[in-house]
């Protein structure tokens, strides 16, 4: 620490620092959101971007629990789902209404209703479950998710059974001149709410309650002795997390115009857990990065390879094992590194690590791709860069094994050296 004055104002970051660290990133984020459409993205890209926006809000809300409050949940999709369902119903009410409140309600406002519904669901479900933390909380969330999904399949009039419920986003009056028909208009809608959600959730971390949720994560026992009830803290945070998830649900209702019971189940909950964790739950921006990367991979990787789920699994395990700080950890580590005095040395280390990872990746990709084609049984042969790699050729396995082994060796070497320091 450089500034060692006893002046109390010097403790808090200077306004310049504040601007750089707390305002500038959001301005940049907003600018990016505004600029994107001017590159004329295709419809596919638009859809992807919209889903990324939804998942950013969803992942951040998830991380209010896991990263900030230390509450691992396997059922966060319940709140997104309930918020979303509520909004699809509203879409239908708007569609059916002749004037009146619903008739004059712009669809643009859906995330507000999703937020309210998510908060309500969080308040109801959180009441019993927040009395416990740790594994008990996680298990309750798992039970609740399965229960809600089963429940949804039973109540057709609310959840539409297997078929789910669809709505029409073009219903109701326009707002800001957006009919919400074409995807570009939906993009503006999503961008607006994503930005709002991100800013709101960031602000939340800066409130007393936000800070206390971190304190409760670190040491719930001690929180009691500074005058707070940890159960209460968890409960309030839980409601907010549910609310923002519901908001993401509202966004999704408009984008996808359909909700099905499975959106309440363990699968989407698990997916967002992975996204947030891969992104890095210790950083505010981690889940954002995770949501971007995972949504992109989830929708595009599958176009390139049948083995995309396997790659995701491998990636996730590697993150858990070697990079507990996730992508954000890498990004910020890099950023700190290039500004630190021994950057030369660090760069060397990174280069080696990168080379190791690259080699390892080649090995893994060869194995996976060849194996997948082999298992399909249609006799298709993988031909990267025009080199045919059938599963029964020795060359194939050499090309797989050598980089794999070399990669492992390089990485071990780097870690060893690091430990010796």
């Amino acid at each position: 620490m450089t500034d060692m004055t006893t002046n109390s104002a010097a403790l808090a970051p200077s306004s310049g620092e504040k601007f750089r660290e707390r305002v500038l990133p959001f301005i940049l984020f907003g600018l990016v959101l505004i600029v994107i459409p001017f590159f004329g993205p295709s419809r596919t890209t638009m859809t992807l971007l919209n889903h990324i926006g939804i998942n950013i809000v969803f992942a951040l809300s998830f991380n209010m629990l896991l990263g900030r409050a230390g509450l691992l949940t396997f059922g966060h999709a319940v709140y997104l789902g309930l918020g979303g369902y509520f909004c699809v119903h509203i879409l239908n009410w708007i569609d059916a209404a002749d004037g009146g409140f619903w008739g004059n309600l712009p669809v643009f406002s859906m995330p507000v209703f999703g937020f309210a519904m998510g908060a309500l669901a969080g308040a109801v479900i959180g009441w019993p479950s927040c009395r416990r933390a740790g594994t008990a909380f996680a298990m309750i969330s798992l039970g609740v998710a399965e229960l809600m999904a089963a429940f949804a399949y039973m109540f057709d009039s609310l959840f539409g059974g297997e078929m789910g419920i669809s709505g029409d986003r073009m219903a109701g009056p326009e707002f800001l001149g957006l009919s919400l028909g074409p995807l570009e208009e939906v993009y503006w809608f999503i961008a607006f709410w994503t930005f709002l959600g991100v800013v709101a959730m960031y602000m939340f971390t800066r409130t007393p309650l936000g800070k206390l949720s971190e304190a409760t994560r670190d040491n719930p026992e001690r929180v009691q002795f500074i005058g707070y009830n940890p159960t209460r803290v968890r409960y309030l945070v839980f409601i907010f997390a549910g609310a923002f998830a519901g908001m993401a649900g509202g966004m999704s209702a408009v984008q996808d115009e359909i909700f099905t019971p499975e959106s309440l189940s363990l699968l989407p909950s698990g997916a967002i857990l992975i996204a947030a964790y891969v992104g890095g739950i210790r950083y505010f921006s981690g889940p954002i990065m995770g949501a971007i990367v995972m949504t992109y991979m989830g929708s595009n990787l599958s176009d390139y390879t049948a083995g995309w789920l396997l790659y995701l699994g491998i990636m996730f395990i590697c993150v858990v094992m070697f990079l507990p700080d996730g992508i954000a950890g890498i990004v910020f580590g890099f950023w700190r590194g290039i500004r630190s005095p021994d950057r030369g040395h660090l760069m060397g280390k990174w280069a080696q690590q990168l080379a190791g990872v690259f080699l390892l990746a080649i090995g893994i990709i060869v194995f996976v791709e060849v194996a997948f084609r082999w298992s399909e049984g249609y006799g298709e042969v993988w031909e990267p860069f025009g080199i045919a790699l059938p599963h029964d050729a020795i060359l194939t396995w050499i090309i797989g094994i050598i980089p794999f082994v070399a990669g492992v060796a390089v990485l071990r070497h780097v870690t060893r050296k690091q430990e010796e320091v």
Partner: protein
Amino acid sequence: EMKIAFIDPLSGPMGPSGDAAFTSYKLAFEHINNEGGINGEQVELTGYDNKVSPKESLVQLQKAIDSGARYIFQGNGSSVAAAIIDAVNKHNARNPGEEVLFMNYAAVTPAFTNEACSFWHFRFDAHADMKMNAITDWITARDDIQKVYLIGQDYVFGEAVAAAAEKQLGEKDSSIEIVGNELHPLAKVKDFTPYIQKIIQSEADAVITGNWGQDMTLLVKAAADSGLTIPFLTFYGGSLGAVAALGEGSIDTLYQVSEGVTNQEASDEQYALIEEYKQRFPDYDYYYHRAFVAAEMLKAAAEKAGSNEPIEVAKALEGLTVEGAYGPVTMRAEDHQAQQNLYISTVSKDVKYGVDNIDLGWVLVDNGTIDASAAEEPTTCEMERPE
């Protein structure tokens, strides 16, 4: 190049159902391509895995449309079909000039060609009421069946089957008692023994089920394990593995209604196709006859319209008739429901083509042919057509 998207489960518990159809379309379009394509354009067929999830299907649909596909084939699951119909309607309304057509080859909830009918949707399979008609006729003709048990999957299609059975049995023969009406979760039950136990206790003489995929196979497997040998009247007894699960027990207990049976009289051409299919895809049997019909009708309509534009093709499809291997197929213009012969078949040892790689196969039952005109049902469709 004409891009066609096939959206269905290609993995998971219902994967084989989707894959069997996918392979059929592959072969059908391969033949069409070999003969010069459709209006000179080669067909490019791409599969999209939807895991029988309506929401996932819409994501895949969007992807398919974005990649240039204008014809969407789907069949496994009426819940998915409903979502696709809705999405296609919206897409076509919002993107004039870029319309897409939905070719439904198996989702047979009657509503799709009745109150929920759409100009952009065409169904190539007979719907549940039509098939149920054949089944209930067959049951009422049998004096030894007095108690019937209904079991099905808990979703629109399962509900439609149950409703049709109740209604038609009530109308046709009031002496027949429905001793059970059960819906179980779709693709989630692993052990049907408790359900079979209930059937045994109800002392039913026959079971009617619309189950398909894994739910069909596991149901009859559990029945065989518990020694239940009453007739099973099914829509999809031909699902992969069902016959194998029952073995010889399936003879005269497993029945199905379909648009064709491999062992029935047909042209040499058809026999050759059946053999070619089996040889190309040894895991499956020739089962989705309507896939070949649908491909042929698409080609015929496009050539009749002289264009591969969906809207033109759709207009040409209306009222179009093609001569199928098991009789003529007509696309009724009123509701876009294909009209064709239906056949009731059961399992026999004495067959030309076995299924499931064993020497049992499907043969027509006596009086098992229902003519298209007899199978036809009225529609309530009020179709909105683009000008």
